[in-house]
């Protein structure tokens, strides 16, 4: 590990200890404290959602019935597991994960601003997040007390099953609606902040790439999430028998819901992955001590992805009797969105060329990201291709592809970001050895868990099955690969848990970190560690590009 600056003269006052007491934290307008509260919430829900995932893998470890009761109650419980895994991971972990936690903390710091544009709105977003979270928790608890059936629709709430199920769909959908508004307000805040609060000298092309990624994300959040809002509102009214837009018995169309839903939810997967790409751009540059290769290409490809993401939603409905022509258009557009992504990957690899590459934990995560995300991207191709989607639609291949992008991409980037910025956030270094072991466990466990699911997909294993028989031509693959997948899931779970413990222990016992342990050149590293409430102890302005490693420019 390198130390470019002498440890900051410890004035003793920072955002963590500026004011004490629970009230001061809960009513804080400081973006760093709000970001931190988001962070704890996201980490908590990651463990909860992960626990559900482990229960799913436990159930499917062997053919026939797993550990759940062998009757309707057991099956419904299983259906609840994967629904809650999906709802929690999507709405409470991945979407707010990087933007609301790390983004909140580092967006103003990287901009050289004192705070986001609307601090009160920021706090409101956080509380909306918890209102939504509590509604989701009530939905879980309620079904165990028998107040209502189990939430068993899957996180997509597809009609017309969601209309007829006895589960607390209205409650869960309202939760998603409220979480949507939390997401909208965060996005709105970030867009306004980036537009209006860049420090003097910071032109658009002098912004760190993390900010470009967050900016593209925020645009999608602002434009797409309201459509989800109105869709979920219509679903609620459908359940209350006020309208019959999605009800086929009353002249409605259940597929219309899918169009509405994916008009949001496909852009939403870019809400999930774009910030991760931003984190990786930061880390690869800093850990190679090298200027990022193709800055403008990476920045603009984020925007290109955001724009194209709005017109690819129909690829979720290739098997719903969509016409060949419509299918062809959506397939083509989906292929088009792959191009900016491919460009990004090439740029990252090119940045490594002739660098000075350290293998600290953040970099290990970033390199894992490159490998896993590339697999995730490439395995999307057969799903975007019309003819091969027949084989894979609604099988475990989709599950594997999705997890390679969402876990192998977003969550790995989240871990990379945590390990990269943890010293700045808390002024303490974590145990590097434990962190590296966890990174290895996560890498191995993840691949074992999800690469096997590609094979399950080739053998047609359908999604959301409570149990499976093996007495057919596909059975041997189903048996062996499900088993390996479950083993991988357990390793992965341990890796995640231990790395969280390692990080949290570091806050109390870690050795003091310097202001700039990685030698980064973006603005957050010029702030004291941990930063004071107003972020900088001096007026900030810049007259340079964000990444200024290399012979010609020298260090600041």
């Amino acid at each position: 590990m390198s130390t470019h600056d002498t440890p900051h003269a410890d004035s003793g006052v920072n955002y963590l200890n500026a004011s004490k007491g629970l009230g001061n934290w809960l009513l804080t307008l400081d973006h760093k404290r709000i970001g931190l509260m988001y962070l704890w919430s996201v980490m908590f829900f990651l463990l909860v959602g992960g626990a559900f995932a482990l229960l799913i893998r436990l159930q499917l470890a062997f053919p026939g019935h797993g550990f759940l009761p062998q009757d309707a109650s057991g099956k419904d419980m299983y259906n609840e597991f994967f629904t809650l895994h999906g709802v929690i991971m999507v709405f409470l972990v991945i979407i707010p994960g990087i933007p609301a936690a790390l983004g909140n903390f580092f967006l103003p710091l990287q901009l050289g601003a004192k705070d986001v544009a609307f601090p009160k709105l920021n706090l409101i977003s956080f509380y909306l997040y918890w209102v939504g979270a509590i509604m989701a928790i009530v939905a879980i608890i309620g079904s165990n007390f028998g107040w209502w059936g189990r939430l068993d629709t899957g996180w997509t709430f597809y009609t017309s099953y969601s209309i007829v199920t006895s589960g607390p769909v209205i409650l869960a959908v309202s939760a998603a609606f409220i979480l949507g508004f939390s997401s909208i307000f965060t996005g709105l805040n970030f867009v306004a902040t980036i537009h209006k609060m860049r420090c003097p000298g910071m032109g658009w092309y002098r912004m760190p790439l993390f900010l470009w990624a967050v900016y593209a994300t925020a645009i999608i959040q602002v434009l797409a999430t309201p459509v989800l809002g109105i869709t979920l509102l219509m679903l609620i009214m459908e359940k209350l028998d006020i309208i019959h837009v999605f009800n086929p018995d009353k002249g409605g169309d259940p597929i219309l819901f899918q169009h509405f839903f994916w008009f949001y939810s496909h852009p939403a997967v870019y809400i999930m992955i774009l910030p991760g790409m931003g984190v990786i751009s930061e880390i690869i540059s800093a850990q190679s001590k090298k200027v990022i290769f193709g800055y403008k290409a990476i920045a603009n490809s984020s925007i290109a992805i955001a724009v194209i993401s709005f017109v690819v939603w129909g690829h979720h409905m290739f098997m719903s009797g969509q016409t060949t022509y419509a299918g062809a258009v959506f397939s083509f557009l989906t292929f088009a969105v792959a191009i900016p992504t491919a460009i990004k990957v090439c740029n990252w690899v090119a940045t490594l060329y002739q660098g000075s590459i350290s293998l600290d934990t953040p970099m290990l995560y970033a390199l894992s990201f490159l490998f896993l995300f590339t697999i995730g991207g490439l395995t999307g191709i057969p799903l975007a291709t019309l003819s091969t989607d027949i084989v894979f639609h609604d099988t475990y291949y989709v599950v594997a592809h999705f997890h390679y992008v969402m876990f192998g991409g977003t969550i790995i980037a989240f871990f990379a970001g945590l390990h990269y910025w943890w010293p700045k956030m808390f002024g303490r270094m974590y145990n590097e050895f434990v962190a590296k072991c966890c990174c290895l466990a996560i890498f191995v466990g993840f691949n074992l868990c999800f690469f096997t699911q590609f094979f399950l997909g080739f053998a047609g294993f359908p999604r959301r099955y409570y149990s499976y028989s093996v007495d057919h031509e596909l059975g041997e693959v189903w048996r062996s690969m499900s088993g390996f997948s479950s083993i991988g899931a357990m390793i992965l779970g341990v890796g995640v848990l231990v790395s969280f413990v390692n990080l949290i222990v570091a806050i109390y016992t870690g050795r003091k970190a310097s202001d700039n342990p990685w030698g980064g050149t973006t603005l957050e590293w010029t702030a004291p560690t941990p930063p004071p409430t107003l972020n900088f102890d001096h007026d900030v302005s810049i007259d340079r590009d964000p990444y200024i490693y290399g012979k010609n420019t020298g260090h600041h």
Partner: protein
Amino acid sequence: MATEKQITKIGNDFFKTRFVAHHFATADQEFDACKFGMWMFLLTEIMLFGGLFVAWVVYRLWYPETFKHCAQLMDWKLGLVNTCILILSSLTMSLAIRAVKMSDKKTAVKMMLATVLCGAGFLIVKYFEYSHKFHLGIFPGANFSFDGEHYSNAHHFFSLYFVMTGTHVLHVIIGMTAILWCSYRAARGHFYKDYYTPVELTGMYWHLVELIWIFLFPMFYLIK
């Protein structure tokens, strides 16, 4: 954060001096950021209503005959009255903002109250329209039934009508509340030529609410 109270005197009126929030460099930056944020919010509102508009388009394409027939049951005169009321209210709101910019406290408050009155007028007309529909047995959803020629998909037209105009009415009520709050603060002397951000933002919101009605009116009343 500046909390110290200071008084500004403009003409014969006194105003509470407004300080720039701690994280902004200048008052202009603060105003720009707030206005920009409001524009983004209006975009989300447009996307929100956009979903409903798409649903309307889809169902009109599927059941054109039913929609034509049902539109004849709507009273376009009442719709026109409401359209005029809302356009008038947009004018009064603009005048209120103009007055605030000129630090004219009295006119500002009057114009804002006039806007709220227009909003109330809109709601009253809407009340009569709704209760007339209910009287005919046209309810949203399950209880839908009415005498007359039977179109089995008429409920789609009317449930979309109730949901879309209902969502719009909700926005009108929120807008009126915001304007009332602004007029209260204006009367207390909070807004003057150097600080009128909340009035400006509320005005933008009100214009959008009016604009949405401009689309709803032909969709349900005029297109036959």
